[in-house]
């Protein structure tokens, strides 16, 4: 997740050469140790102060995390999330200047199964991270990605958010916290540790089948992101956390913004890259590292010995054009080298955006994407890129209904009665889709996933050979929603207000 700074290793040496003669721009006394941007030289002490202040300022400015709240830190092992962990540790220490007042916990998702690591490799990584986590004294949870296969459907349902607290509530909560002598409850009372459970090999295989059913790396990465987020949210919910802290840094977010844009996620850009993301309702995703560049983090980790662990991901050791995510990352990194303001400009663009459909407070799930939980962006006017694409597909296909050929875009359907529903039984024999076409008949009902997904998740599913490997919680929720749609259609003439779901 956060291996971006690998390129900066040699940058370290280069940057330090010219700075030897210079003084720190902050204290103007000590000689400079780092050059953050052109002309900004900092000495060791001032750099540390600047770095720490930035973290507190980000949390202080946004006032989203209340004192005494349980916050789950998603640590991937990469430099950025490890740096976040060290900042939280620093902020909670007894001598901290502006002490943080929340109760942290750590979650690590072991994705080794999806990436194809051996059991030994996975164990080694987990052991390494476990040592880091233990040293913090925070409760931590090691969760294998395989557990995503057994999630409940409630994960993809937006939970009602606790009523929005008024602006004054934050101050009141702080006052209250300070009065009720807080020193006792700051140190975690218990040491909850969930060590990595033994993962059955068969489960890993099922997971690999699921990831492998996506034919392109772009779709595989997108799918993995979705699954990871579901598992993170589920872990936060079951362990009683209300905030989930992600380690996305500025560089990462610039890449993510451009990637999301290229994947058709324009409507969700603000949620994908903003400071907070409330798409799950009860669990709020927070990105406190979004002001740091990957370079700053690399400097800090290097100078103050923050350990991070190298974790391979799906696009490790692939070419630039292996996937859209990978291509965008290399594009931004290269452009940043020529034009140093690239990342910050893209990042500032993201600050000016907002989600198209304001999330309504009601748990109005039928209008949210089954996978990414964002408001559906497919109900668009006639003159739109979405409609134009549909028109193109229609016009390029046979006008006569019976003759189906391999060129027809794969119907996005669950593994049920595919052949009979797509008009004409003769295509059962098609070699290409024969697999998912006839292997089915487990359930009598046809699920049309397409109508339940946002534009971009439709693209991902389109890139999958079949959806039968999708975890059960997704398929059963899809069925449930489908049934509700049908029901609504049946009673539609009696409903007075078309827009009101009424549940």
């Amino acid at each position, binding site marked *: 997740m956060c291996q971006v700074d690998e390129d900066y290793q040699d940058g370290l040496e280069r940057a330090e050469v010219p700075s030897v003669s210079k003084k720190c721009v902050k204290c103007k006394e000590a000689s400079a140790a780092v050059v953050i941007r052109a002309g900004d030289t900092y000495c060791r002490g001032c750099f540390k102060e600047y770095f720490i202040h930035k973290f507190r300022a980000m949390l202080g400015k946004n006032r989203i995390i209340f004192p005494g709240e349980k916050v789950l830190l998603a640590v991937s092992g990469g430099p950025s999330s490890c740096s976040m962990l060290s900042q939280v540790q620093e902020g909670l220490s007894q001598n901290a200047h502006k002490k943080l007042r929340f109760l942290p916990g750590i979650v690590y998702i072991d994705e080794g199964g999806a990436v194809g690591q051996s059991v030994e490799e996975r164990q080694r990584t987990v052991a390494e991270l476990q040592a880091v986590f233990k040293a913090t004294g925070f409760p931590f949870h090691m969760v294998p990605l395989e557990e995503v296969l057994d999630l409940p459907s409630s994960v993809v349902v937006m939970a009602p958010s606790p009523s929005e607290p008024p602006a004054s509530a934050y101050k009141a909560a702080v006052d209250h916290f300070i009065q009720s002598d807080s020193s006792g409850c700051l140190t975690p009372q218990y040491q909850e540790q969930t060590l990595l459970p033994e993962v059955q090999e068969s489960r890993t295989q099922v997971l690999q089948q699921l990831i492998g059913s996506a034919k*392109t790396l*772009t779709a595989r990465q997108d799918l993995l992101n979705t699954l990871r987020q579901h598992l993170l949210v589920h872990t936060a919910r079951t362990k009683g956390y209300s905030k989930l802290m992600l380690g996305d840094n500025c560089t990462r977010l610039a890449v993510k*913004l*451009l990637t*999301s*844009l*290229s*994947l*058709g*996620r*324009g*409507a969700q*850009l*603000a949620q994908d890259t903003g400071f907070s993301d409330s798409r799950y309702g009860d669990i709020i995703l927070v990105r406190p590292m979004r002001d740091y560049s990957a370079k700053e983090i690399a400097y800090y980790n290097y100078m103050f010995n923050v350990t991070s662990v190298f974790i391979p991901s799906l696009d490790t050791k692939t070419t630039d*054009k*292996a*996937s*859209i995510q990978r*291509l*965008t990352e290399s*594009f931004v990194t290269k*452009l940043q080298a020529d*034009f140093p303001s*690239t990342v910050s*400009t*893209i990042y500032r*663009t993201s*600050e*000016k*955006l*907002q*989600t*198209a459909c304001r999330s309504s407070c009601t748990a109005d799930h039928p209008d949210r994407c089954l996978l990414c939980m964002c408001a559906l*962006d497919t109900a*668009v006017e*006639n*003159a*739109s*890129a*979405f*409609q*134009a*694409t549909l*028109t*193109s*597909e229609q*016009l*390029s*296909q*046979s*006008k*006569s209904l019976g*003759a189906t*050929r391999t*060129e*027809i*875009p794969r119907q996005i359907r669950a593994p049920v009665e595919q052949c009979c529903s797509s008009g004409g039984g003769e295509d059962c024999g098609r070699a290409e889709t024969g697999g998912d076409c006839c292997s089915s008949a487990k359930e009598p009902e046809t699920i049309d996933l397409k109508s339940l997904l946002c*534009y*971009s998740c439709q*693209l991902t599913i389109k890139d999958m050979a079949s959806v039968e490997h999708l975890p059960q919680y997704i398929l059963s929720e899809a069925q449930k929603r489908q049934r509700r749609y049908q029901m609504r259609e049946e009673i539609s003439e009696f409903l007075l207000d078309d827009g009101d779901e009424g549940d």
Partner: protein
Amino acid sequence: MPVLCSSCAEKRAVLKRPKTGHSLCKECFFWAFEEEVHQTIVAAKLFKPGETVGIAASGGKDSTVLAHVMKVLNERYSYGLELMLLSVDEGITGYRDDSLETVKRNQQQYELPLKIVSYEELYGWTMDAIVKQVGLKNNCTFCGVFRRQALDRGAIMLKVDKICTGHNADDVAETVLMNVLRGDIARLRRCTAISTASEGEGVVPRCKPLKYAYEKEIVLYAYFKKLDYFSTECIYSPNAYRGYARTFLKDLESVRPSSIMDIIHSGENLSVREGVKMPVQGTCNRCGYISSQALCKSCVLLEGLNRGLPKLGIGKHHRLHDKILSQQPLTEKEERKLKSVDF
């Protein structure tokens, strides 16, 4: 084994559509391409019967295909439009003079009236002369700003109700990327609109009927229709930074062909946060053209050229606008900053 057309299932397919991946025969491709442009025009309600429409024609592939398709569709679906060709002569020897020859041939082939407006008659400067003063850096700024206004002036001379331009899907997606890379939120919001709202005096509404047509399909269409078009890059080198966005887009397309449409979809669904400062549209104090500043960009650029300070319009010198308007002399320091540096 020959591949059969996926649409008519009778003839041999001769091409694979870059947009959808379907294999089509020539006739079915023509039909699909034209039909899609028609759908776009109808869905976005671009024209009303009886309107006079100026087609911005450069002689390049996009505008040649646009002129051809507009003529075909106007007849096939009885739009009731009066079509005209409108060209701008920037005065670039060895480039525009050749491409204008193509436009003149198109005029005869399609039997459409043609109007050419030139930078020289409008501004007193040809691009050749501008490049001589400005150099090869930033000259595209002059050309782009002047062309926008030149088209409007030509449209007013011709008394057309609307202008349509040959911008294709690739152009729109590229512009979305560019505006993100430049952090230009105001343009980011506007750039995916298929037509500009009528913005008042002196500005003719514009639209992009080829907004959802892939550049590659436009070339295919022109190729199989054997259309007469001019394909040379401008001799005054294209904008370097845009080149990065273009290469990136082509790479994206090669990874996932739908990327171009996906980016346009993203652009169409973006929304800007409340409270973000947006430029306010006003009019230029000198020429009355739309402008967000006291002086419109082309007046500032022109002033710079005429005073021998070409950098006046490059970068931000809003504070100097009042001085220019009241015809006050600039200080020596200001002058030195705005002179072109060529050594």
